[in-house]
């Protein structure tokens, strides 16, 4: 759409600007403030310069949490995106079953995050949970409280359970927007199921898939409540992701300086990685579009 140049539009944006400035800029300034200072309590602060940042970037604790979180996000994306596409492709296209599927699938998305944690904490327990009990009955040694591998599997399955529906809903929305004529043309040409997917459905889902990958990356990288409720970051530190570590540091130990430095680095990593994802996928989309017009 052709947009007119009008600087008075700023007045429309002003409420949002003030509100977000209040709830984002001021707190962020507090964080910046703490990140360059040291305190011994009593509201006395000393200039610390970049000490906290150098300490943080060299600390094994931060590296470990960062690597754990990156591995977690990678696994989550590798499972949820293909699974989401698969389920979306198999969903009915019209009739009452569409509503039933949509409502049931969206259900996990609207459960408070700590309730999600509670559900899985109970579900996985070997004494009273269906999953843990069945595993034990099958003779599998499963205990998410003591075994790091089991804890990881539980947290990943929980996240797949919680968020795959988001990918499904996005892909489904992309799929239903494809006009029927495309499928009819493919049918006349005798295109195989794979060709229909590769050359019609996948390109048409490109935009929503981009959103899905971005959202899933951001949210899995910021994950706090669910693993905290289920494993509390343990056993040991095996499921201590960045957010859990950060809250431990800021609220538990009240190390304001290091926590603030970590907050900023953490935020910047998310911004940077999201930007990289976005640019790479946008460019991939554009290349494909160019190729198509060339043909």
């Amino acid at each position, binding site marked *: *759409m052709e947009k007119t*140049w*009008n600087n008075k*539009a*700023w007045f*429309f*944006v002003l*409420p949002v600007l003030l*509100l*977000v400035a209040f*709830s*984002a800029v001021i707190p962020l300034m*507090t*964080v910046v403030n703490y990140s360059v200072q040291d305190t011994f309590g009593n509201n006395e602060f000393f200039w610390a310069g970049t000490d906290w940042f150098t300490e943080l970037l060299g600390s094994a604790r931060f590296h470990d949490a960062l690597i754990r979180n990156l591995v977690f996000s990678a696994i989550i994306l590798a499972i949820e995106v293909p699974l989401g596409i*698969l389920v979306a492709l*198999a969903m009915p296209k019209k009739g009452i079953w569409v*509503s039933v*599927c949509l*409502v049931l*699938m969206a*259900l*996990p998305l*609207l*459960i*408070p*995050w*700590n*309730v999600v944690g509670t*559900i899985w904490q*109970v*579900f996985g327990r070997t004494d009273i949970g*269906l999953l843990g009990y069945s595993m034990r009955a099958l003779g599998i040694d499963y205990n998410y409280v003591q075994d790091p591998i089991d804890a990881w599997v539980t947290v990943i399955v929980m996240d797949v*359970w919680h968020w*795959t529906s988001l990918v499904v809903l*996005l892909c489904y*929305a*992309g799929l239903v*927007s494809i006009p029927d004529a495309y499928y009819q*043309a*493919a049918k006349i*040409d*005798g*295109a*195989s199921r794979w*060709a229909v997917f590769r*050359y019609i459905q996948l390109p048409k889902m490109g935009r*929503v898939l981009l*959103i899905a990958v971005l*959202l899933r990356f951001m949210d899995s990288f910021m994950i*706090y409540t669910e693993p905290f409720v289920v494993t509390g970051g343990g056993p040991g530190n095996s499921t201590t992701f*960045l*957010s859990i570590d950060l*809250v431990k540091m*800021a*609220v538990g130990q009240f190390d304001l300086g290091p926590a603030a430095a970590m*907050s900023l680095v*953490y*935020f910047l990593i998310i*911004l940077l990685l999201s930007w990289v994802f976005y640019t790479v996928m946008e460019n991939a989309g554009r290349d494909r579009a160019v190729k*198509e017009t060339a043909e």
Partner: protein
Amino acid sequence: MSVPTIATSRAAADGIPGSAHSEVALKARASRRSGSFRPKALIPIVYILFLLLPIYWLVNMSFKTNVEITNAFTLWPANPTLRNYAVIFTDPSWYNGYINSIIYVVLNMVISVAVALPAAYAFSRYRFLGDKHLFFWLLTNRMAPPAVFALPFFQLYSAFGLIDTHIAVALAHCLFNVPLAVWILEGFMSGVPKEIDETAYIDGYSFPRFFFKIFMPLIASGVGVAAFFCFMFSWVELLIARTLTVTDAKPISAIMTRTVSASGMDWGVLAAAGVLTIIPGAIVIWFVRNYIAKGFALGRV
């Protein structure tokens, strides 16, 4: 995407050029497609079962007595009891949690949509100094980890004496809900042709009258979708809500953790409280089910 591309690529892939176009192949394919048994339908069914199993277990537990939960492993309640729900509905410290949650979620929804409406209109209709940067900056707030903001929020709202009030949580949740609402509404508004605005002005409508009488009904579903997502993200968030409240505005999901520290775990009440937090979400989804797909289709979440 052109049709010949599919045909050529398909033929190339199969190595049988031409045969794909034959009448026989087409018929064979058609009959295979329209068979009465569709194994494809199994995928959503299995997936939904996977989703419902843990929820079923929670519901199942909420109707059991604690003795049954801990001592006997039963797939359904042997002696169904409503005691767990009775505990919640008769104890104000429990049911006030629900009221608190609903108050701040609704407050947040109203504030977010109200401030997002004019902003989204500006972004969808006008170009102005720094508009692209502003839009991107708004979106970066969606990427801010709540853990980063928990402590500064506590200090900020303490300074204003707002700790333990509903409005504090509602304002704090605006951090991620306002950008989201602007993004969704902008998408819907861009779908409304600009000629409608111009015609209204020629007909002598003032801006507020035009906005509420003509424009709002056109983007009603967009407002619904935006409100839905604000509800969703405010309802499920715990970290910030818990940090900013002590007792008077404590959300139900934070009160739930109380049973953990009680002498001996009250599993039944915990499960019942969990089930009750699922219900408002389920009701809201049911109402917006026809719009969810459309809201997502805009690719604006």
